[in-house]
């Protein structure tokens, strides 16, 4: 049932792009600017290295187990008990992360337009809409992203073009004034976002054309990197060193647009872009969570548990942080390490053990095959 649905590699790439970039676009400029200052546009390039690395690992693991997700093959690799333990940790981690994403969305919406609406309503309505998409399965998520992502990109580029008038290239200089270190420091938080590309290992089993999966995964990482560099450059040119002190620099940037006294206050467009992007992001995480739990419990279908999980996500979203300051601080400090530590070492260790075991098994197999010849 679950394995029948197929998505194309392009859909996967389009789906992963907002799954990483959506929250990034709003929060990253100020977080990187704190560390990297005028070099903040270099940070995403460093950070993307980890994205490429993670996609590579996910692809290699997928080559070994073409039909399974990370939840399923961790059991094959590490044995039943350890595998279950690791995947349980993974799932709890994703539950927490999804809660945080949902909360980011809620904080953003309540800070920009719905000041008096209770958080439960804002988050709950979004989770409900996402659950429709999750119930539709990977094919539907893929198609939805195929429609939404190009539109979102187009609007984003339009905003960038409209801002060109106000940009100051001078803000960029001096490049690498204090050497390479600040930009590297600034890349730590984006790295944690790029490590979320490990989610691709859940989608690779659904991809029709496995060989192109790697290529499009890399293209997806590239596109996210370009998008982040563009965002950081835009904010850097516009605000200079002010960027670090703003919560939502892109939102403030959109406020600057004023053309012919008519095109003004385009922050609502940013909001629309952002809601659409976050929608895909939440849907992707939500889908992975439901699928992962279903695989972990060996259910034949993940659909019955979608709504209960949505409820859990809602609660996680409400509990994950007291307010935006706490959330932002968490993401900029402990959060980065926390996210990185889950998403990079575990797959690497899994891949290492799997390759070693494969080698040993191949060795054994060869010996067994050779044995009769020797006799």
């Amino acid at each position: 049932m679950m394995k029948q649905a197929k998505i194309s590699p392009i859909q996967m790439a389009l789906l992963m792009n907002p799954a990483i970039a959506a929250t990034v676009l709003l929060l990253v400029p100020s977080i990187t600017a704190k560390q990297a200052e005028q070099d903040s546009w270099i940070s995403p390039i460093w950070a993307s290295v980890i994205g490429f690395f993670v996609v590579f690992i996910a692809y290699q693991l997928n080559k070994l187990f073409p039909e399974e997700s990370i939840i399923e093959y961790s059991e094959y690799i590490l044995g039943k008990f350890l595998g279950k333990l690791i995947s349980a940790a993974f799932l709890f981690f994703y539950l927490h992360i999804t809660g945080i994403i949902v909360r980011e969305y809620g904080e953003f919406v309540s800070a920009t337009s719905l000041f008096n609406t209770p958080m439960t309503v804002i988050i709950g309505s979004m989770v409900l809409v996402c659950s429709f998409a999750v119930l539709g399965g990977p094919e539907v998520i893929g198609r939805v992203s195929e429609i939404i992502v190009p539109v979102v990109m187009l609007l984003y580029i339009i905003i960038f073009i409209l801002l060109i008038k106000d940009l100051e290239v001078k803000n960029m200089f001096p490049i690498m004034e204090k050497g390479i270190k600040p930009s590297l420091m600034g890349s730590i938080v984006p790295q944690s976002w790029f490590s979320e590309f490990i989610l691709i290992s859940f989608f690779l089993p659904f991809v029709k054309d496995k060989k192109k999966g790697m290529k499009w995964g890399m293209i997806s990482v590239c596109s996210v990197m370009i998008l982040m560099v563009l965002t950081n450059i835009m904010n850097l040119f516009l605000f200079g060193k002010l960027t670090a002190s703003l919560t939502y620099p892109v939102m403030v940037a959109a406020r600057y647009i004023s053309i012919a006294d008519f095109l003004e206050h385009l922050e609502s467009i940013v909001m629309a872009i952002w809601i659409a992007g976050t929608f895909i992001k939440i849907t992707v995480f939500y889908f992975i969570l439901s699928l992962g739990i279903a695989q972990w419990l060996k259910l034949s279908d993940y659909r019955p548990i979608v709504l209960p999980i949505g409820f859990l996500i809602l609660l996680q979203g409400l509990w994950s942080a007291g307010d935006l300051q706490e959330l932002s601080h968490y993401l900029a400090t402990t959060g980065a390490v926390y996210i990185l530590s889950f998403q990079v070492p575990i797959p690497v260790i899994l891949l290492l053990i799997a390759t070693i075991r494969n080698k040993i098994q191949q060795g054994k197999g060869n010996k067994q095959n050779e044995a009769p010849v020797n006799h």
Partner: protein
Amino acid sequence: MLNTERPDTAAASLLEGNVVILTDGTPFVLIAPTTFYSLLQSPEDYYEGYLIGTLIRWLRYAFLLVALLLPSGYVAILTYHQEMIPTNLLISVARSREQIPFPALVEALIMESTFEALREAGIRLPKNIGSAVSIVGALVIGQAAVSAGIVSAPMVMVVAITGIASFLIPRYNAAITLRILRFPIMFLAGTLGLVGIMLALLTIIIHMCTLRSFGVPYLQPLAPIRNSELKDTIIRAPWWSLKKRPHWTGDYNKFRQSNGQKPSPGKGNE
């Protein structure tokens, strides 16, 4: 399934490789499978030059969104996002709304439902009385309601534009869906503002992505993307370039016309 009364539409669908079902006792034929874009295409697109056809098609796509979103957008902006309107416009809108006792949402609901009622009444009545009804409707809605201070003048404009926009959709079954969907979106706009509209749009997109018509994804060829078929959906490509049939129906016989149809000046010796 699509229904049509026009022989040219039926013939073109056959040429695209669709199935056409004729039934005894009805002037309509059924065409299967249907995609979302075939609901938005009108045969007139193909009788004009391709530039005109493309422009008309874009106009239709734009007004599809207008028909769906204009009243709810108006409600959302007036209730939650006043800062989006340029100041001068805001002042004139505010002045016209000064005496209105209702919130924007109620106003929009009253006007929209009156308009829908008038429209249905116009269909049922014979032609001669129908025009009388539309005159009464125009006077009642347009003039009297504004001067009585029940609805504001901008609201009347919004409703009128929405009404005209919904007549741009060539198929009745597509247009009526838009008319129905307009009301829940208006409610969401009145409660959650632009966020509500976005949520409604997302839900509609999700629903359309789950649909299939006889195994063909409903939003084909935009999702899943088929580059070669986009030229007959986003634009109306010239006749000579529409060589291939859509892939979902054209497996059996891929080409609908021979090569070399592009007009060009004759070669010297011909």
